[in-house]
């Protein structure tokens, strides 16, 4: 079957295309087949995740002597002992006695950057999220550190009273409706089997949904060409909820993370992932 490629004029082709739209009614099952096709698209992306580029940079950052005190982060205690990275993310957020505070990964990294490397808080937190050439150390560090928990079972404890409190306040935040659109986290993530546009919305109030969602961040977002952390996910959800800006390493941010991370307990951590 051979035919020349450029045969129809542009106008003829446009007319043909237009006729197609008018004459062919959408099949009733179209939305289901669309969902299936998108599943295939996602599958095709799995092989070759650019998150690896962030992981490599993060590992180098962790091991590089930096800051006024010119030390690496290799003595940083992420909760499993100084310098232990393997499996650490699957147990965060957790209570740290040396700071007398529940901390998530980013907060703990800032703690190590300020107490061990000698950075000021302002210097350490100046770029939580990257954009193109302006890159965030946190995204790189999180990519590598989380990759060291791949396959590890989520196990976020509620042993310390402050861990329990963070969880309880995080749950309150999850249901908190506010802003001009009356949105809460629960508006989009409180029911099973719902979508926004074509994106499946995990139900974060039940085990399966919370596990699926939490264990697949950080992720390389193809729509942005950036690696995004769970911290970023919370910030951007609140932006779209029309709330003011969630402060990086703030207690509310840690509390909500504690609520969602604990709900994912029992599942194997599976990130950095790749998403739309």
């Amino acid at each position, binding site marked *: 079957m051979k035919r020349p490629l450029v045969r129809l004029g542009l106008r003829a082709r446009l007319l043909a295309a237009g006729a197609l739209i008018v004459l062919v009614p959408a099949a009733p099952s179209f939305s289901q087949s669309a969902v299936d096709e998108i599943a295939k698209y996602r599958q095709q992306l799995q092989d070759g995740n650019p998150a690896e580029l962030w992981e490599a940079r993060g590992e180098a950052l962790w091991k590089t002597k930096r800051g006024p005190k010119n030390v690496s982060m290799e003595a940083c205690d992420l909760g499993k002992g100084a310098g232990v990275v393997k499996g650490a993310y699957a147990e965060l957020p957790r209570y740290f006695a040396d700071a007398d505070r529940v901390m998530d990964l980013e907060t703990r990294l800032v703690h190590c950057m300020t107490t061990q490397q000698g950075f000021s808080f302002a210097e350490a937190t100046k770029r939580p999220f990257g954009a193109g050439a302006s890159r965030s150390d946190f995204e790189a560090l999180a990519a590598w550190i989380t990759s060291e928990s791949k396959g590890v079972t989520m196990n976020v404890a509620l042993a310390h009273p402050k861990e329990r409190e963070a969880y309880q*306040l995080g749950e309150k935040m999850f249901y908190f409706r506010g802003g001009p*659109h009356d949105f809460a986290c629960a508006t989009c993530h409180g029911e099973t089997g719902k979508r926004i546009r074509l994106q499946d919305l995990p139900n974060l109030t039940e085990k399966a949904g919370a596990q699926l969602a939490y264990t697949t961040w950080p992720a390389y977002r193809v729509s942005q060409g950036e690696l995004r952390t769970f911290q970023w996910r919370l910030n951007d959800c609140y932006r779209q909820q029309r709330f003011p800006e969630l402060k990086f390493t*703030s207690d509310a941010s840690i509390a909500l993370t504690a609520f969602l991370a604990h709900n994912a307990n029992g599942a194997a951590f599976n990130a950095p992932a790749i998403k739309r």
Partner: protein
Amino acid sequence: MNSRRSTRAILAIAAVAAGCASMSDQEASQKALQLMKASFSERGQAKLDRLDQDEAQRLCSKPPSHELSKETSARIEKENLASIRYPADGKLIGDWKSGERIAQNGQGKQFNDDPKRPSGANCYACHQLSRQEISFGTIGPSLYQYGKLRGTSEAIQRYTYGKVYNSQGFTACSNMPRFGHNGILTEQQMKDVTALLLDPESPVNK
């Protein structure tokens, strides 16, 4: 500076909490609000007053297990219904083509949005509307053939416009934004969205 303030806030909370096994639900709500006020910063048009809840927002900030009483639901609906302002010119049907653009647009009111530009309603994020648009959400019911199924009587027109204006006038704690009540859409925009749903020429009714 801000982090010090928020650290102090959580320490204060912890001091109270340390005394008892766990907080009461009401205590937790108050503490969560304090925590949020210390943990968000104003940016662009999104000021901290967006964390100040009205009664409906406060009552609707509950897990599904805390179902509202019939009386409370009825009160929310009554008060919200009373807030609806119908157009002075009595015309409720605008331009469906403009309505389609509003339904596709998800911008507006976010801290990075230009407050001078009109907001969208982002209907497709949650609803199926026309047959052509396959990228639609399912948080709300399908509205495909909305007008074809219901007709365009004055009662239907008023219900439709009113539902867009303030959804909680009809369903307490509805997930749908109160587009008129909270000043998201202009009167003309709400007429255009009403037209998208009811105009026989609209793709919704094809």
